[in-house]
């Protein structure tokens, strides 16, 4: 068994057994559901907006080369440098080179899952650069040397008590159980960092081809400070994030806020068209866009699942997923968790090691329903299962389903199987779920239904003498 799959089983067992933790996550999400529904209701038609968002992403993703080239030409004309990174290593090397060439000492970052994907902080720290996450949740998990728990709510797994303890230990602050005081501690620490940093690294929510802009969505103001004060701005940008027109943002900004956080709009939605222009009073002297492929083109090549590149990383599918809510963000072992992570990780990191995530689904379809860009998530989970079975068939499964098929297609065999079933079921019951049970993989967490004393077939025969 692959270690990733074994790790998933171990961790998901541990988290699901912790009822207090599950209740804590549920409580954290309950306010989100309420606000999300209120905001959806404000739309004239949320479903119509989803359809238009899906159409717009379809257009963009299916003409990706055209829109990326338009974006590149426009933003380059404004003085930004665009670097096309095939993989994580190329992206890291480029950012390290920019940092070294400019004698950077201190780096401030705003939230970017793409940098988690390429393990940027490790690489920068190994080369001696001080790197500070400025988003409150990201800063908390950075201090704990953890990865973000959730795409949008990185520290939702921690209680205020844990955060207070952490700040006491790492920052020497006083204990408090008030979220406001804890936030102000981080605010004060970070204020100095913004003013001192000479490089700011951000993510990107959308790139606009028509005008050569990147758009960053946030609530705290940390991304605005990260992109205003340091002399260099590096923006990480997955190739799939480009939109054709500026006005497309008037749909996507409120949809991202509603689906992601239950807000009408997040507090700051900022469009950047290059570094500081002549005559402007502030802003970075240099702007570098790192366009990242890192196997997104593998997903692009899979026409059946290409719509998954429309993902705007709102996290709505995580918030409604019965699996995510119970196993939590860390069980997945991936940068992108929840249903969208289970769909795309096999493309980004290999089907063999990551197909098990697609099995961890009830196929209830809540994710598909929640997705603002209408990615067909639960069907993609099924397709991953199919592709996984095709790529590495399991002989035991093949024999089992072959036998089942034979039995169900042959009435005599079926009757024989029922007779054998009645004989063997009491024996199986004695060892059900134990190490002696040959069906343990399945019965470990389930009970086999008891065979009826008389099958329907037998009852029919008895009552009606076999006549129709």
């Amino acid at each position, binding site marked *: 068994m692959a270690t990733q799959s074994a790790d998933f089983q171990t961790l998901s067992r541990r988290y699901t057994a912790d009822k207090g933790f599950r209740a804590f996550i549920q409580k954290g999400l309950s306010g989100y559901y309420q606000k999300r529904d209120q905001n959806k209701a404000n739309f*004239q038609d949320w479903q119509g907006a989803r359809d238009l968002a*899906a159409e717009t992403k379809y257009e963009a993703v299916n003409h990706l080369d055209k829109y990326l080239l338009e974006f590149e030409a426009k933003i380059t004309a404004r003085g930004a440098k665009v670097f*096309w990174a095939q993989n994580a290593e190329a992206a890291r090397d480029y950012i390290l080179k920019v940092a070294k060439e400019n004698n950077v000492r201190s780096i401030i970052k705003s939230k970017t899952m793409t940098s988690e994907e390429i393990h940027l902080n490790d690489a920068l720290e190994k080369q001696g650069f001080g790197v500070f996450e400025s988003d409150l949740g990201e800063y908390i998990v950075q201090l704990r040397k953890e990865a973000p728990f959730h795409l949008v709510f990185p520290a939702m797994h921690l209680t205020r008590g844990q955060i207070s303890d952490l700040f006491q230990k790492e920052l020497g602050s006083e204990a408090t159980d008030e979220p406001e005081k804890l936030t102000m501690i981080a605010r004060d620490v970070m204020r100095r960092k913004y003013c001192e940093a000479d490089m700011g690294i951000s993510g990107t929510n959308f790139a606009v081809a028509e005008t050569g802009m990147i758009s960053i969505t946030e609530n705290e103001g940390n991304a605005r400070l990260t992109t205003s*004060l340091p002399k260099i701005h590096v923006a990480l940008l997955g190739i799939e994030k480009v939109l054709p027109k500026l006005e497309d943002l008037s749909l996507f900004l409120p949809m991202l806020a509603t689906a992601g956080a239950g807000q009408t709009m997040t507090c700051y939605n900022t*469009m950047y068209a290059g570094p500081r222009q002549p005559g402007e009073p502030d802003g970075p002297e240099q702007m570098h866009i790192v366009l990242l492929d890192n196997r997104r083109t593998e997903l692009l090549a899979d026409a059946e699942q290409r719509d998954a590149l429309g993902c705007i990383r709102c996290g709505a599918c995580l918030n409604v997923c019965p699996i995510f809510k119970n196993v939590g963000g860390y069980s997945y072992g991936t940068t992108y968790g929840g249903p969208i992570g289970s769909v795309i990780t096999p493309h980004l990191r290999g089907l063999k090691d990551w197909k098990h995530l697609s099995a961890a689904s009830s196929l209830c379809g809540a994710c598909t329903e929640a997705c603002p860009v209408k990615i067909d998530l639960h069907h993609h989970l099924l397709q991953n299962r199919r592709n996984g079975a095709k790529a590495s068939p399991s002989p035991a499964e093949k024999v089992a389903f072959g036998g089942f098929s034979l039995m169900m297609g042959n009435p005599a065999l079926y009757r024989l199987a029922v007779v054998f079933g009645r004989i063997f079921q009491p024996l199986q019951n004695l060892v059900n779920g134990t190490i002696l049970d040959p069906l343990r993989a399945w019965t470990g967490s389930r009970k086999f239904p008891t065979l009826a004393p008389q099958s329907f077939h037998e009852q029919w025969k008895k009552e009606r003498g076999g006549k129709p």
Partner: protein
Amino acid sequence: MSGGRAIILGRIREALRNNPAPRPHTSHSQSEAAADHNGHAQREWLPKVGQTLPERIDLFAKISEGLTTEFHRVPTITAARELLVKLAAESGWKKIASHSHHDTDALLEGINLPVVRTEKGYAIDDLESCEAGVTGCEVLVAQTGGIMVSVESAGGRALSVLPPHHIVIARTSQMVPDLTAAFEHVKQKYGTKFPSFISFITGPSRTGDIERILVLGAHGPKRLTVILLD
């Protein structure tokens, strides 16, 4: 470093060649305008905005309340000045920041405090030590309770986010119905020569990162005041 431009573009074209993806399942037929991608079909689905200016101002005021944006309508610039003087006294400002702009200049006439002007450059620590930042804006967005600012209309990138209290002055002629109209405004005003920074500010800075509990003033302003001049 040239990067993998040719390789990535090659991979994209290879992935898309003769390999069409199924169209999204949509239940709403988007209007013709959406199909040619030049229209503004989103207006059909997004939150509704009233047709008249008073309705739009009312909507802006209502959303502001939910966001804890402090929204004031004033009849004259004199009344706006009085409001600012009152805010300064209540909050005990010692130093504020602003930028030269017809409305901000007029607003600051009555203020007897040192003012850091950002439009020709400034020292970061000088701006950081200001208790308030006073700016103009591009437009106000009724649909979202948002304020669109830019380098040009708000004295650069940092003035509207670094000081802990942001005060915006706007005129009723700057009230637009929705986000789409705000984008049309910048296109009309700047053509293709956009400022390098354009932002929608929707309420004071906030976070919910600790137990999903709302806290105002995460990294940006804790207070946001909009003064709308009739």
